[in-house]
């Protein structure tokens, strides 16, 4: 569809007189085993909505990806997809990737370029933004359009997500943003959408100067508890070392760490470093699962800034329940066993 026709439909003169230099919303996508990553699909859905509000195109960008991924981007809302390829782009290296994307942006002049807030997005976006002297909004939890100023509205987390701020760059273009995976809704694919997939080959990209050497298997020291995002805490109510072991396994499955109360420390189930509370560590995790923990004030003071507190205790009158997002009246050890079983059965 010819852009002039679109613009005249949308009440053209004003839009034409406004920022015609930069136009369209681009989505830099990522591919995993089965095609586009879910985050990329969600980003396309959002880009499509915003592009409809602005009356512009959505263009997808992929690096060294198969044609099928390009077609998938079309089905999720892209009008055109650029498959960037060439020497240096076979696997991720920020300098050739940034150079290829920069050249594509220079020729295409998008007004908005969106990435996922993954390591790829986190590496590419700041370099591109610096190159174009452009604004970058990272870890966006939501995106919107200010139609009066024809600008992106980016909702970014502050204080680790305790509140959010809405930012806008009224005049600088392009506008770059990385979006937190999993916050945008999953869109629907329309396999009948039309669009074009173009291969763009680069043959003179700079070499990447960072060598990626593979996974690090030696095991890193555990980060301090105060920086842990997920904590499973044991109190006397887990009854014995078997219960503690179940809690430890659950923590590992959830990508978190084990902690305990004063009672657990006295029983010899945890070390001093794992003690949470007034006499121990203050923590601010996204998730805290308190197993067999009564909820004494000394402990509760250490977990005041938890985002989601789940408490499991056999005593329905346990002090911890009024502070929990979810209280479960049950035997902690038994529930831990079931949680481990269910997580083992769920494919990763």
């Amino acid at each position, binding site marked *: 569809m010819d852009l002039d026709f679109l613009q005249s439909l949308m009440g053209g003169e004003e839009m034409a007189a406004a920022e015609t230099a930069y136009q369209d919303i681009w989505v830099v996508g990522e591919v995993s085993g089965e095609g586009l990553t879910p985050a990329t699909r969600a980003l396309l859905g959002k880009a499509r909505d915003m592009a409809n509000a602005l009356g512009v195109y959505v263009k997808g960008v992929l690096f060294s990806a198969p044609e099928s991924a390009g077609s998938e981007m079309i089905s999720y809302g892209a009008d055109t997809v650029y498959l960037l390829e060439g020497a240096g782009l076979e696997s991720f290296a920020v300098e050739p990737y940034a150079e290829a994307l920069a050249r594509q942006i220079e020729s295409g002049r998008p007004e908005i370029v969106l990435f996922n807030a993954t390591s790829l997005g986190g590496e590419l976006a700041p370099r591109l933004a610096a190159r174009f002297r452009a604004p970058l909004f990272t870890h966006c939890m939501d995106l919107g359009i200010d139609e009066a100023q024809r600008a992106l509205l980016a909702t970014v987390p502050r*204080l680790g997500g305790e*509140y959010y701020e809405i930012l806008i760059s009224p005049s600088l273009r392009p506008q770059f943003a990385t979006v937190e995976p999993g916050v945008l809704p999953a869109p629907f694919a329309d396999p009948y959408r039309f669009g074009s997939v173009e291969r763009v080959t680069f043959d003179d990209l700079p070499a990447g100067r960072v060598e990626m050497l593979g996974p690090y298997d030696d095991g*890193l020291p555990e980060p301090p508890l105060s920086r842990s995002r997920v904590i499973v805490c044991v109190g006397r109510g887990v009854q014995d070392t078997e219960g503690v072991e179940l809690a430890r396994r659950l923590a590992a499955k959830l990508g978190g760490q084990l902690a305990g109360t004063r009672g657990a420390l006295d029983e010899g189930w945890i070390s001093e470093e794992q003690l949470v509370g007034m006499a121990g560590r203050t923590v601010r995790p996204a998730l805290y699962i308190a197993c067999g923990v009564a909820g004494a004030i000394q402990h509760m003071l250490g977990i005041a800034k938890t985002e989601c507190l789940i408490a499991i205790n056999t005593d329905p009158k346990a002090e911890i329940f009024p502070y929990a*997002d979810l209280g479960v009246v*049950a035997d902690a050890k038994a529930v831990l066993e079931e949680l481990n079983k269910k997580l083992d059965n769920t494919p990763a």
Partner: protein
Amino acid sequence: MRIVVAIKQILDPEGITVNRRRERIFINREERIINPADKCALEAALRLKDAHGAEVIALSLGKPAADDALREALAMGADSAVLISDKALAGMDAPTAAMVLARAIERLAPFDLVLAGQTAADTGGDQTAGRLAELLGLPQVLQALELSLDGGRLQVVRLWDGKPVRAAVSLPALVAVSPLAPPARYPHGARIMNAYRQMQVSVWTAQDLGLTPEELTPNIESRGQVFPPERELGTVVEGPPAQMAGEILSLLRMRRLI
């Protein structure tokens, strides 16, 4: 070897509470600290200094109070400190701040390594390191956990989408250190006194860096704050363990915690 470490002084987030119902941010305890990830960057620099010998220069862009942050860096073992402070630099946005820092770092050339914290604990910002690398024309390694030097080549253990991987880069380079990296050493009491009494913090102004007012005009505006909904507490359920495990997993999925 010359290592420049960029640090930022922030208000300690531990002293700040957000009241969701009243949609207000309360500063209960106004304590200024070095941004934790930047402190990890200082620690990484000092470990390299301990192992191989290096000159460590601490650099900060901030208000005059950031002098304390630089004294702390000196007490930890930095050899010199530079504060970029100027009324003209008040209220900068992220792109401008990166540009100012890059100018200052260029002025400290030659250097072998630039270190910075990956993320600012107050604003959540994590773009400065990447911007600096581009502006300085350096290769970048982000989310670093451990650094070691092998000949002229830096070996880094870093996170890639949450998993630790190994990378290597020849100097000069820029490395952004993750807040999950080993925490910093405590400065010795006598060293803290020494940092204030006997060491100098150089102060640079916008003019020293040749910055024009046009370059310093901020371009990003805030449209206000949004507060997450209040947590609904006190829900209690009861039932057989398998069912309870199911309830817990449902909640975790709904909250996107798994």
